[in-house]
């Protein structure tokens, strides 16, 4: 029988510090270097951490085969993919914000281009955009020029006309409104005011403006048909080119006319090569307008050239003079109002359309 002194002596004999304990248990303490009383344990620890015995790998083939099959059966969610998804999630709000900003800027510019902003805003926008080479009308200034060609550079006028014509035709063509219109009554009133400039620029009557717009839309629709069905995903969706402005204009036209509410062009105004967010609906197609033969462009070009050249068509071929054009272009004239004047307005629209 031992008293407490013997017990303490025994305890202290087999007590070691943390560092020695760690070296002992990790196998870094050899029996030779071990403190007195620990050599046997150091030997056992080293044995327990010894090299593999063949029996310990006896089931290698079965286990590895089954484990590899299990790895391959798991849906492939790699860490790198998760990181990309995470990044995408983080960037998505920024992309949406950029998209909204682009739409806003496009719509504002569209409104400015058509002179529909309040006077103070119109003046400010006109001044600002003049620094980047875009001419925007100031308040109360007349934007129309000869043959309906506005003063915006880079083809933006034609696209602006497309957007405005979209709204104009939708408003005048179906009084009850199309799609999810914002109420046909007020829309008709506002459209008559909003399209005054358009009407004034193209013949002075709603009928003549309608003819002009049909020409614009016919040419544009013809261009869509040629684009292999992927027009919505084509370069016209970029905000960097002239067509980016056109997308904004489409939005304006939709908002003014009964076709409003359809954010035409809004989803297509992507800032650069960002992928399309899944929540943005596809932009609706323009109102269905009878699509005349794409040859209208050729016929109209010849017709207008004849009108301007007084009987001479580019290329040296004798064309109709203003007087006898009714005979040479009887078909074209008959299709578009029955008069030389109405056909001229229509052909102006065809030639001015953005696809050309």
């Amino acid at each position, binding site marked *: 029988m031992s008293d407490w002194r013997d017990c303490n002596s025994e305890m202290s004999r087999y007590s070691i510090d943390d560092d020695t304990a*760690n070296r002992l248990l990790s196998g870094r303490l050899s029996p030779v270097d071990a403190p007195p*009383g620990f050599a046997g344990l150091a030997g056992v*620890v080293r044995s327990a951490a010894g090299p593999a*015995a063949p029996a310990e790998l006896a*089931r290698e083939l079965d286990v590895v*085969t*089954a484990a*590899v099959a*299990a*790895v391959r059966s798991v849906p492939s969610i790699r860490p790198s993919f998760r990181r990309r998804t995470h990044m995408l999630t983080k960037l998505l709000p920024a992309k949406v914000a950029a998209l909204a900003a682009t739409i806003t800027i496009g719509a504002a510019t569209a409104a400015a281009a058509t002179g529909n902003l309040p006077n103070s805003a119109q003046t400010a926008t006109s001044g600002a955009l003049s620094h980047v080479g875009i001419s925007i009308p100031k308040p109360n200034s007349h934007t129309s020029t000869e043959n309906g060609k506005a003063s915006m550079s880079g083809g933006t006028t034609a696209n602006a006309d497309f957007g405005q014509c979209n709204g104009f035709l939708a408003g005048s063509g179906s009084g009850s409104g199309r799609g999810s219109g914002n109420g046909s009554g007020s829309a008709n009133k506002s459209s008559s005011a909003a399209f005054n400039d358009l009407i004034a620029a193209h013949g002075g009557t709603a009928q003549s403006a309608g003819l002009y717009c049909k020409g614009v839309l016919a040419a544009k629709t013809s261009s869509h048909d040629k684009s292999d069905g992927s027009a919505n995903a084509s370069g016209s969706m970029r905000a960097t080119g002239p067509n980016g402005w056109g997308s904004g204009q489409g939005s304006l036209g939709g908002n003014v006319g009964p076709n409003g509410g359809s954010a035409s062009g809004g989803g297509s105004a992507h800032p650069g090569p960002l992928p399309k967010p899944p929540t943005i609906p596809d932009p609706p197609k323009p109102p269905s307008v009878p699509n005349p033969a794409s040859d209208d462009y050729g016929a109209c070009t010849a017709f207008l050239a004849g009108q301007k050249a007084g009987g001479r068509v580019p290329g040296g071929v004798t064309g109709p003079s203003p007087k006898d054009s009714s005979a040479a272009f009887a078909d074209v004239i008959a299709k578009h109002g029955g008069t030389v004047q109405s056909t001229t307005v229509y052909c102006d629209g065809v030639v001015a359309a953005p696809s050309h």
Partner: protein
Amino acid sequence: MTLGTNFDSVLAAAQEGAEWAFTLLYRDVNPRLVRYLAAQSPSIAEDLAADTWLAAARQLTAFEGGEDDFRAWLFTIAYRQLVQHWRKAARRRTDPVSPGSFPELAAPDDPEAAGVSAMSAREAAAALAAALTPDQAQVVLLRVVAGLDVDQVATLLGKRAGTVRVLQHKAIRRLAERFSLELLTE
């Protein structure tokens, strides 16, 4: 026991389902895995090890970390397999042992088990566990056989690092007494 600088590429290949990579991981870790399991449940150590690898394979694509992390992760799965086995065995109130494993079982008071020279790795691990309480055995086996540090063992067992150190010191005293060559020669 380490793949060293090759570990990252081996792991990436194994996550893609490359058999050669999985074989390297298996050869690197399985001997110690079987030893760890056999020291506590010798009759089904091989089965538990295989189950551990299969469970790990199903989650392998989600694993991220270095070689030490991988070993700790694998032994965590093995520990859970072991605990699950013990719970089932407790419900059955039996723990079938194959007669073939009897020679591997060292009696706590077997003088031959204390002989260091003739001890295999598996026998040595079993001898360490046999001399300790279950908690102490778990700590010592994870430190000696699995090669984990105190913090990793604490995380694996759900204990504080201080508690693991206390258990380890008590275990060392007990084992030192048990395997003291001086005592054997007395």
